[in-house]
């Protein structure tokens, strides 16, 4: 039987960063909860501004991360 795996400082900080990002996400969505129309190339969809901002952030982050690995 083995004990709990030791927690590295790096892993703890990474988890803290994830938690901070999630807190920021809740605050952004909560404080921008108005319904807006988002239009793109003729497409039109109604969604909360906070979700639209978060989506743009995630797409931008994912794109940047993919690009930097090439």
């Amino acid at each position, binding site marked *: 039987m083995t004990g709990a795996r030791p927690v590295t400082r790096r892993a703890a900080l990474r988890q803290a960063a994830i938690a901070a990002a*999630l807190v920021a996400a809740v605050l952004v*969505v909560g404080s921008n909860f108005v319904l807006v129309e988002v239009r793109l190339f003729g497409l039109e969809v109604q969604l909360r501004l906070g979700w639209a901002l978060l989506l743009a952030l995630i797409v931008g982050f994912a794109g940047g991360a993919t690009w930097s690995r090439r």
Partner: protein
Amino acid sequence: MARSILLVSRAVSALCLTLLAALVVFDAQAERFTAGLTPAQFREQLEVELLDEYPGVLGVAHNAGDDLGATFEAVAHDVDAVEIDVRSVGGELHASHDAPVPFVDTLFFRGPHLEEAWEAARLSDTIVLDLKESSRGYLERVRRFVSQRRDRRLIIQTQDAPSLRILRRTVPWAQRQQLIFTAGQLEELRNDRGLVAVLDGVSVRDRLLTVGVHAWLEQRGLRTFAWTVNDDRRMNELVERGLDGLITDRLDIMALLAGRRDLT
């Protein structure tokens, strides 16, 4: 220490994920607990005295005249006034916020004619024309256009002071407003008594409209419009101060400005 940080962070993450999920699932109910107020909720929160102030403020649909669809939507929301940005393209007046690309403007420009925008907004009592150019020829075209259509209250605003002086002579029935984009322009206005005498009002960028500036404008008998105000709290603050015109994208608030109480 590292383990404690990890555990606390995981707990916070779990809580946040739960909250985000709740915002997705209970979307309609969540409005009450977030900054996104429905117009009805907004009205409920207004002080009774302020509720009576709102109908006295002219509600202007920000740039709604630049797109016919937006114009119809604004009119459907009972706006007091429709704002139209006016540009000259190939010698004709068009409604457009952005300048057309030089040399190919007559080929690719797709903004509606000013006449179309004017007609689309015909159910609105007031039109706010935002002049984007200042040449003599352009001002003459504007004069000719509005002279043939004196069916509604007309407010003309521009940041070009000489244009306002010309318009005072050529379109005397229109309300003339100086557009203020920067603190420098505001300072120039404060130091130019001649210009103040020509004006009926000013249209000020919201963040420049401090209590002091508002009081100064009021003392000189200038009607004050603010743009672009979309925040509920800021609207309340400005209305309480005695704002004359609210230029906003918030069509949902227009019913309140029109004196209706049946917001949904």
